[in-house]
């Protein structure tokens, strides 16, 4: 990995993050809406907040965003705040900070995305590898088409069907939410068990759909791997079948999955957000829906910025560790 590549890649990361922050700054100004004032008057007309409070809030935001200052100064201030993850107060949950609203929701989403991604990658790679392996049972070949058919359908539509069959009809799982209402989130085992029970269906929706993506790529890579000379050599040397499969085949075929995972991460997260909406899961997605319904612009911009930043960061990390994992890949300049 050359220093030039490293610098360029990190530069791209900052460009994406800067773009996301600037976008949030520029758009309301192009559209010529003042979301905060609008929202305040809306709230006041509904009697949701007393007018004295409203004025205090408007003043607070004006001071905060420096709306009396020239545009470039507002912009610099805005970017600086976003760089420090300071998104100000949530409009709907005033006077709670956007940062603390998000930090309550973030762990739920992080755990859901990470665990279901790991499971679907594992199952998908196993299935894809076995389908392509001549010595494997035919059962895997029969399993392949229905899994591929599922992969065409968005997660959350599968999620709706899962709720109906497994939560509503069979009553095996709770109906939505992240934990039983009334129980207080804590560090004890019962709470974790309860949370895990609530997470199974949302995770299943993601896993069932994503296995197909992972499996078909793995199948392709396994087929390619089988044509390689080192496989022939290993076989000639008398390596056992399982060793050929796992050590020579799977190990080499699974690495390119990292790249495709990095590329589809944005797509996965968008899907997870909608899965959360369907299940009422207390993560970023449900928070996003709430901010949309409440016209809570500060919370909305904070969420969108953080989601884009996390994905950009994850992609950056995957890109940087990839050449370490796969020695066949180098970022050295082609000469």
């Amino acid at each position: 990995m050359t220093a030039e590549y490293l610098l360029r890649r990190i530069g791209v990361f900052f460009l994406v993050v800067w773009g996301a922050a600037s976008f949030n700054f520029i758009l309301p100004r192009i559209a010529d809406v003042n979301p905060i004032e609008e929202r305040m008057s809306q709230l006041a007309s509904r009697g949701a907040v007393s007018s004295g409070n409203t004025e205090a809030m408007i003043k607070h935001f004006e001071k905060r965003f420096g709306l009396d200052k020239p545009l470039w100064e507002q912009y610099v201030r805005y970017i600086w705040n976003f760089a420090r993850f300071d998104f100000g107060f949530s409009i709907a949950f005033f006077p709670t900070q956007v940062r603390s609203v998000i930090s309550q929701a973030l762990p739920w989403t992080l755990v859901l995305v990470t665990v279901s991604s790991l499971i679907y990658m594992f199952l998908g790679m196993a299935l894809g590898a076995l389908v392509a392996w001549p010595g494997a049972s035919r059962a895997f070949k029969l399993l392949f088409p229905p899994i591929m058919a599922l992969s065409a359908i968005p997660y959350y539509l599968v999620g709706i069907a899962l709720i109906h069959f497994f939560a509503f009809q069979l009553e095996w799982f709770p109906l939505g939410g992240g934990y039983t209402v009334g129980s207080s989130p804590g560090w004890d085992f019962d709470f974790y068990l309860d949370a895990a029970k609530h997470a199974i269906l949302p995770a299943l929706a993601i896993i069932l759909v994503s296995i197909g993506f992972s499996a078909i790529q793995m199948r392709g890579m396994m087929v390619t791997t089988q044509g390689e000379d080192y496989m022939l050599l290993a076989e000639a040397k008398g390596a056992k079948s399982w060793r050929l499969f796992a050590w020579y085949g799977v190990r080499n075929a699974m690495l390119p999955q990292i790249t495709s995972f990095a590329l589809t991460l944005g797509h996965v997260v968008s899907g997870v957000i909608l899965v959360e909406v369907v299940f009422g899961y207390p993560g970023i997605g449900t928070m996003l829906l709430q901010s949309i319904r409440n016209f809570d612009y500060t919370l909305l911009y904070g969420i969108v910025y953080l989601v884009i930043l996390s994905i950009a960061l994850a992609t950056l990390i995957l890109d940087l560790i990839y050449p370490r994992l796969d020695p066949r890949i180098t970022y050295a300049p082609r000469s």
Partner: protein
Amino acid sequence: MTTAQPESQGSMFDTTIEHQEGSGFVRSLLAPLRWMRDYPTLWAGLFLLAFMVLFGIVGSQFVDPELARAGTVEIDLSPGQTVDYRVKGEDRSAFSVLGTDSQGRDVWAVTMLGTPLTIYVGFLAALIGMTIGTVLGFIGGFYGGIVDNFFKSFADMLITVPVLMILVVVAVTLKSSIDVTQQALIISAFVWMWPLRTIRAQVLSMRERAYISVAQISGANTLEVIFLEMLPNLLPFLAASLATAVATAMLTTIGMDALGLGPQNQPTLGNTIYWALFYSAPFRGIWWWWTPPVLALALVFGSLYLITAGLDPLANPRLRRQV
């Protein structure tokens, strides 16, 4: 992309050469059948998609659009019941195939009208995005330079960003209600990246091939090379890219709709899902509200998947020998 591909790209005519038998006339009559035999996946996908499009277009002629509006029928009736329609103050009752939802819409009418609307948004957005991506891909592949560099890097960056997030910000900030065409236009700004990458890579590798050089030496100008030499060979790629782009665009439109940011007062499938979720239909066991839109979407997505998978052996001839 690999550079060494001895076979001609997307050689659609291989099959007809392989199976030369019978007289010319009979053969030309049987040609479509042979195609179906050789590419069953592709044809299954095309038939399914055509069926869904016709289903919506023909079906929507036979339903009263009034019934797809809230408050026109009794609420929460399960399929097969006789329903009192309160349309325009008329006092009549009729058989309801798919029941009614909690806001007083007829689910059959909603599904019939919503399916073509959602497919329309997907296709319009994808066609515009494809056009942008293809043009940029050709320019980039042919001329390279700063413009190519800019768009290539921009596309690479945009691909990793969750597009739905950007669209949510746009829709919430602008807040003005949009119609289906405007929604398609907004989405089209985010589906050009994959076509650009695919087409650009193909043009780059194709540019070095002998037959392109021959055409150029024979005095063909750039446009002739693009339209007569390259485009025909790229057809399978373009078709596969289009199918993928339609799926992406549809995924985005129902995603926006499901967050309540879709075209208002339009019975799109995504909006139907939004309202079904809003009224907790899956949790209350009102399955006839969400099953029709979910099933219709699953069939459309399935058909697009079959088309993409079926085009794969045409786009990548080397895959034909696999598995």
